[in-house]
């Protein structure tokens, strides 16, 4: 199953061009959803106004070279390894994030290049597609059931669904339905494979069509916010925060931070 390109098999029933149009429509939905989100929430406007305000409070001038190095460091640390999060949350986020990237890229490659019944797909692509989906499920369900702040800090049950869950839930459900559909199709269990294909399509529509209502766009906003944070640290404005102290370790009693689950 994991070395079979599910889209190649699917092309016996659904023309390749239809699949390609579906992918393009999903991309358009993401772009449109993000733009409407930005217009409605005015978050980008706030972000740039805040950056301008911070610049006025700057105590140092940051050179262009230094700015580039801050951006590179932020991308390497805050974006690619999500250093903002710690411990298990970071691991779950990395699993979900890289799983999603692998899943989407391999989906696009297979749909645009190897989605005819005759096409011979390099086995690495379906392998990565399934691996990506499994990574999403591992990171997503781990986060969903155990690590979600609603469960960990608020003490709510894992099955309580709120609007903020739209993104993570539609993502893990998409990966799950994709895996089940691929298995059923490879095993030749007709009827059930069609059902899970429909569910896979519907969950994709919710995931990409729900950008305006979900947290999907955080993947575009978060890197920008991280860069601004580090630039503010470098120019001395630092959002009016005190500078780090020069005291040695354990200057006082100190206390190690505990996981926020004392509800």
């Amino acid at each position: 199953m994991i070395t079979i390109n599910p889209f190649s098999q699917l092309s016996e029933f659904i023309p390749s061009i239809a699949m390609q149009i579906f992918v393009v429509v999903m991309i358009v939905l993401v772009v449109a959803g993000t733009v409407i989100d930005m217009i409605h929430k005015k978050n980008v406007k706030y972000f740039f106004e805040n950056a301008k305000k911070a610049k006025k409070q700057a105590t140092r001038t940051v050179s262009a070279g230094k700015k580039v190095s801050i951006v590179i460091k932020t991308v390497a640390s805050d974006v690619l390894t999500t250093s903002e999060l710690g411990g298990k949350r970071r691991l779950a986020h990395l699993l979900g994030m890289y799983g999603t990237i692998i899943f989407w890229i391999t989906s696009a490659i297979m749909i645009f290049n190897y989605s005819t019944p005759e096409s011979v797909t390099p086995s690495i692509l379906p392998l990565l597609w399934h691996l990506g989906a499994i990574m999403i499920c591992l990171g997503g369900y781990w986060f969903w059931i155990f690590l979600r702040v609603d469960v960990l800090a608020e003490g709510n049950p894992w099955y309580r669904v709120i609007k903020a869950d739209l993104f993570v839930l539609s993502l893990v459900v998409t990966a799950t339905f994709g895996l089940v559909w691929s298995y059923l199709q490879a095993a030749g269990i007709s009827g059930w494979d069609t059902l899970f294909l429909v569910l896979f399509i519907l969950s994709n529509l919710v995931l990409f069509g729900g950008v305006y209502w979900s947290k999907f766009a955080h993947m575009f906003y978060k890197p920008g916010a991280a860069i601004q944070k580090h630039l503010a640290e470098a120019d001395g404005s630092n959002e009016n925060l005190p500078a780090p102290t020069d005291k040695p370790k354990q200057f006082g009693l100190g206390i190690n931070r505990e996981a926020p689950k004392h509800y």
Partner: protein
Amino acid sequence: MSTFVYMTRCDGCGHCVDICPSDIMHIDETIRRAVNIEPNFCWECYACVKACPQNAIDVRGYADFAPMGHSVRVLREEEKGTISWKIKFRNGKVKDFVSPITTKPWGKYIPKLAELEIPSKEALDSQLLYAEPKGLNIDTELPEMKKERFKQGVYY
């Protein structure tokens, strides 16, 4: 004064939810970021401001005694055991303070409520608060003021 959250900084970790003694810091159901659900009930204790690992929580002063343009921000560095304050006055004057962290670990002086028994309905309906009357160092019921001991002219 009451706390508010910079949404671009908050990562929804839940430390403020955990520590708020007034139980007003919660997670927003739409964007999964922290939010002060009832600013009127904020004690201004700064517990959440200090606990926030992202420094995403700030305190908004009332305009009558904390005019626009001021700022009181805090940085807690656990590995050093320090807590630093930066007070910025409206006229631009800045004062910096550094103190040792004196917070006690969870469970040492702060009860682990999650491990305690859920109070019965009678206990919830009674006038006694948590840990009373033992916490008041008395073994009897709450002390009662007899009406005849009231000052002259005070009646209920």
